[in-house]
Structures are given as structure tokens and as C-alpha cells.
């Protein structure tokens, strides 16, 4: 009981705070805004899902936190506070001490993470050697006990990447991401390349990670049902902006932004059959460049929405960017 109280108290400590972030991409001679007016905070022990379509800025956000943005990206303004330090002001040498050590990373494609001529366990040993100075043999032992916790036979540590299935590789990626006991793990579409059944196993592994080690997780996905199932809170992005943010249960029960409502309606379910025909109205798929970014697809759009962009309105415990809630 006492432990629970202490855990609860430490809940309101922020591990990551992104403040007023704006990022642009140079494409040819033009500049495109990828992320705009983004402020979000992730607490310790929190699983935060960031949901959005391709082009919504969710992956740019992840890259910015890890400071691995592509060369044509420019951070226009904002700061990213990690444990009280602004990552954007950190020299690269110090950033390298945080990346992969205090902030773990899990990517979409597990095959790209591994060096094909190294055994999977060596990857973990190398990580521990670089960041902690752990001896290689010892590192392999750590790898063994780590994967065993997640129900993987420890001798698989001595396999080469090609000997593992996609799902097994992704499980090793997770083990690798947490080997250094990071405070925050960024998972960028970690289950997209996996089969539905394997996906479930990876998800419960991530849940375990939070429950047992208290790691905060920033879970980036295009799949709203996935986001709702794994996270405590969901941030919905559209066209580079946050359009809604709420506890997962509230979002599921009562989505406020018309975009979130539309997303929830479109998900095929097993219990009932959707009448897809009603979705075929217009062929617009790109965010609006004037007024509210969703105004050209929104069924509630009024004159003001086309003219004026709404701010992210704070409704106490949740936020929404829509004039309907002013």
C-alpha cells in the first residue's frame, strides 16, 4: 500500500517536456512546416501514445527528441527538456551519452537495427560496454537474463540476426533498448512490420517494461486502436499540430475533435459491420493551409474555421484544438 502511494506521488514528475516546438523541412527551394506549436509533457511511468497519419509530424517529433533529424530539417523554436536539461542545447558529445543510454529507442524495422555479422547478444554487450564500461562477457550474461525475463530462451542470445524471426528480432530490440535501464523509451511504430499475433506479444512486453521497471514510453503509431489499448494518455496529431490530447479512457468514451471522431468511426471492428459507403464523400486528404488545418475535411466546419486557426483549448485534464469547444 505504502509503495503504491509513493509511486503515485512520483507520478507527477515530468521526464520529458516539449515546449512550443516548431520544425521546418527544406524541400527544394520551399520550406514546409513539419511540427508547429507542439507542447507536451510525459510523466515518469507514463505510456504516452502519439497518434497521427503519415505526414502528421509524429516521427519528426521522435527524431527531434533523439536529435537525429535529417539534414534538411531546422528547429525554428522551442525546447525539449529531459530531466531538467534542454536536449536541443546539448553538445553532440553529451547527447551521445543520453541517446541509447538514458533514452532507449525501438524502431519500426527490427532487421535494420542489427549488424548481420554480430550475434544479437553482442549488440547488447556492446551497448553496455560503450555506455557503462561493462566487460563483454558480463554484458552477454546481462543479455541472457534480460531476454529470459521476457520469455525468450537465453541461448538465443548467441544466435545471429538472420536466425531469428521478425517478432523475435523485435523482442530483442526491446531488450536492447532497456539494457541500460533508460528512463524513457521511444518506440516508433514498433509493431507495424509484425503479424497481428506477434504484435500482441510485443505490446504486452512493452506494458511489462513500464509495470516492472517504471520506464516511461513514448509510443508513436498511426493506429488509434493500438494507441488506445496500450497507453495511459493519447496525443493526436494532424498536419504537424496537436489536435487533441486526453487520457485514453476519456478519448475512447468521448472523442472531442472531429478528426479523432472520424478516426474512431473508420476502424473496422469484429462486433459490427461498418457501412463504408458513407465515407466516400470527398477526395481531399491533405491538411488545409488556411484556418483550422482540418477545416477542409471537417463535417462541422463553419465560416470561422476556414478563416481562423483555433488554439489548443485546455479543458482541464484534456486539450482540444477546435472552435466547437471555445
Amino acid at each position, binding site marked *: 500500500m505504502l509503495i503504491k502511494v509513493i509511486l503515485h506521488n512520483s507520478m507527477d514528475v515530468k521526464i520529458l517536456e516539449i515546449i512550443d516546438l516548431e520544425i521546418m523541412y527544406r524541400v527544394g527551394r520551399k520550406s514546409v512546416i513539419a511540427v508547429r506549436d507542439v507542447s507536451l509533457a510525459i510523466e515518469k511511468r507514463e505510456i504516452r501514445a502519439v497518434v497521427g*497519419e*503519415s505526414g502528421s509530424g509524429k516521427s519528426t517529433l521522435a527524431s527531434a527528441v533523439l536529435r537525429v533529424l535529417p539534414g534538411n530539417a531546422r528547429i525554428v523554436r522551442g525546447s525539449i527538456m529531459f530531466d531538467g536539461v534542454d536536449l536541443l542545447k546539448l553538445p553532440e558529445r553529451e547527447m551521445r551519452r543520453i541517446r541509447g543510454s538514458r533514452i532507449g529507442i525501438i524502431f519500426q524495422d527490427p532487421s535494420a537495427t542489427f549488424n548481420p555479422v554480430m550475434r544479437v547478444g553482442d549488440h547488447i554487450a556492446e551497448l553496455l560496454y560503450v555506455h557503462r564500461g561493462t566487460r563483454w562477457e558480463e554484458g552477454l550474461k546481462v543479455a541472457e537474463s534480460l531476454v529470459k525475463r521476457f*520469455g525468450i530462451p537465453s541461448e538465443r542470445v548467441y544466435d545471429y540476426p538472420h536466425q531469428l*524471426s521478425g*517478432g*523475435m528480432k523485435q523482442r530483442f530490440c526491446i531488450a536492447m533498448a532497456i539494457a541500460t535501464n533508460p528512463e524513457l523509451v521511444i518506440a516508433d511504430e514498433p509493431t507495424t512490420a509484425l*503479424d*497481428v*499475433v*506477434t*504484435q*500482441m*506479444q510485443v*505490446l*504486452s512486453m512493452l*506494458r511489462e517494461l513500464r509495470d516492472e521497471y517504471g520506464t516511461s514510453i513514448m509510443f508513436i503509431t*498511426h*493506429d*488509434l*486502436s*493500438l494507441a*488506445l*489499448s*496500450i497507453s495511459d494518455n493519447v496525443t493526436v496529431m494532424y498536419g504537424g499540430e496537436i489536435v487533441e490530447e486526453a487520457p*485514453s*479512457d476519456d478519448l*475512447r468514451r468521448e472523442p472531442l475533435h472531429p478528426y479523432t471522431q*472520424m*478516426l*474512431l*468511426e*473508420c*476502424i*473496422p*471492428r*469484429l*462486433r459490427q*459491420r*461498418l457501412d*463504408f*459507403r*458513407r*465515407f*466516400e464523400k470527398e*477526395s481531399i*486528404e*491533405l491538411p488545409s493551409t488556411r484556418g483550422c488545418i482540418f477545416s477542409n475535411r471537417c463535417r462541422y466546419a463553419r465560416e470561422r474555421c476556414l478563416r481562423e486557426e483555433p488554439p489548443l483549448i485546455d479543458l482541464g485534464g484534456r486539450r482540444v484544438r477546435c472552435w466547437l469547444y471555445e
Partner: protein
Amino acid sequence: MSEPILQVINLKKYFALERSIADRLLGRSRAYVKAVDDVSFDVNENEIFGIVGESGCGKSTLGRVIIGLLKPTSGRILYKSKIFNRTVDIASLKEKDLRLLRRELQIIFQDPYSALNPKMKIGDFIGHPLEIHKIATGEEKREIVMKIMEKVGLIPPEEYYDRYPRELSGGQRQRVVIARALILNPRLIVADEPTSNLDVSIQARIIALLLRLKDEMKLTYVFITHSIALAHNICDRIAVMYLGRIVELGGAPSIVDEPLHPYTRLLMRSVIDPDTRNIPRVREVSEPPSPVGDFRGCRFVRRCPEKMEKCEREEPPLVEVSTGHYVRCWQHVKR
């Protein structure tokens, strides 16, 4: 019920693996991947027939074989052709006839990015089959293309005709791919995961488009997907595939309301329901086995939570449990 437009009978497609030098020296015989292994089913005219399974189950290979893009190892694919005015066996058709049949049979792939030619204007890309089949060129071609572009929602067509693929969004690219598949007025379309690279809101509109086109153009779809939830939403009947075999087949409602095969139940448990909390529990940790080599017993036995001793030894036959609902599982074989 109307006569089927397509009858697939004992279809097999094996891929031979390269033998290493050591294998040759030791006189080991060639290993095969049995991607499609003795599959039979009918597709009725104007229905949506779903094929559901995980990657590696052979569903994409099956889709390519039934429209003649791949030659089967054995088996028959009887197709009721309009052009030939008779039923033809796609498996044994000559190359020249197969090319003619291409007008009636089309395929839509998963990834619209790689299906498009980046250096071709989309209007020309959509109209290309008209030139290949010497149906129309020049102004006449342009007119047919514009009409089909309008049909698939690339509106106004004159604005899109001269654009390049990179200027379009993912959903628009898939519309281009669909337009090209439709330009020759086909009758049967294999849609191989046509929306799995798209976001849900775009997916919904592409599905809506496919459903409208089906009615307007009297199309029949073989819809291949990994998502049993999506298949349940749009298909009339569903075949569940596992390691090259159909393990369950039936009407979409009866498959979902009354799944008989343990694998179908596993697939259903893996669907995340956005309306309830919690990750569905999938206790099973083992990996899907490789499709290489020979099998004894039921193919699902290694992952099956309900396996019996017999399952290891002998493969169950596909039996009809209720009208039109088939399953390949010993639990349902009456002795």
C-alpha cells in the same frame, strides 16, 4: 446461387529452394516452399471473397496464381471468360491467350508507391493498358482515361492527368492504381492488401470506392488481407489460410460469429477493439513455423492450444460442418 465465375481446384504452387554445394555433394534432394498446397474454392459472380492469413501463409502467391501471373505447380483454375465465351483453365492457357485474358483479370497491389512509374504522368500511366492492348490511342485514349479518373474520384481529371505520382498523396496514388486496373473493364479483381499502407481514414474511403465500383461495374473481388476485422466488414465469404492450406472457409458472418478453427480464434483474439480497454491476451509465444519442407500432421499443431495426440500424426481433412462452412480440424471430424 449463380454459377461460380472462378473455380480453383487442387491448386499447388511450390517454389524450389537453391541447393547448397554441401547439399549436392551429400545427395540431398531439393527442398520446396509449399506456398500454396492443395487449395480448392469457388468464387461466385459479384461477390467479395476474402483470403485472410499472416504473412508467409501463401495468400499473396495464391492471388498471383489465380489471375495467371504465376504458373501453378499443379491444379486447375477454371474461369468463366466473356472474351473466350467459354470456361478456360488459366493454369494451362497459352501465353498469348493469357495476355488477352488480362483484360478481364486484374490485380491491385498493396504499395501504390512502387506500383507507379515515377516518370510517367498519371494519365498516361492509367491509359497505358489501352495502348498495349491496341484499344485506343491519342485523343480517344485521353477521353477514356478521363472518364475512369472521374469514376475513381480523381476530380477534376484534367487537373490530375498531367501530374506525376510524387505530387499525389498515398490515397490518391491508390486511386490511380485502381483506375489503371479498371481501364480495360475487367470482371475479376484480385486486391492484395490494397489499403494496408494507408491510414484508417484513407482506408475507409478507398474501401468505399471499391464497393461502389463493384456495383457500378459488376465486379468480383478476391480480397486478400491480414486483417480478419476488415475482411469481416466487407467480404461475403472468407477463407482463412495457414501455411499454404485453407484451414477454414465460410460466410463472413458465420466465420466471425462461430469460428471453428483454433487458428481463426487466435486471429480474432489478436484484433484490438478500440471500444474496450486492455491488450487482448495472446498467451501463445511460439513463432509461425517455416513453410519449407514436408509436414506431418496438422500444420497448426505447433501453435495449437487444443491439440490432441492425433494432430501430430495425421492431417485433418477439410470437412463441411454446416452448410458452406468448412474447417480443417480433428475436433470437427465425425468418426
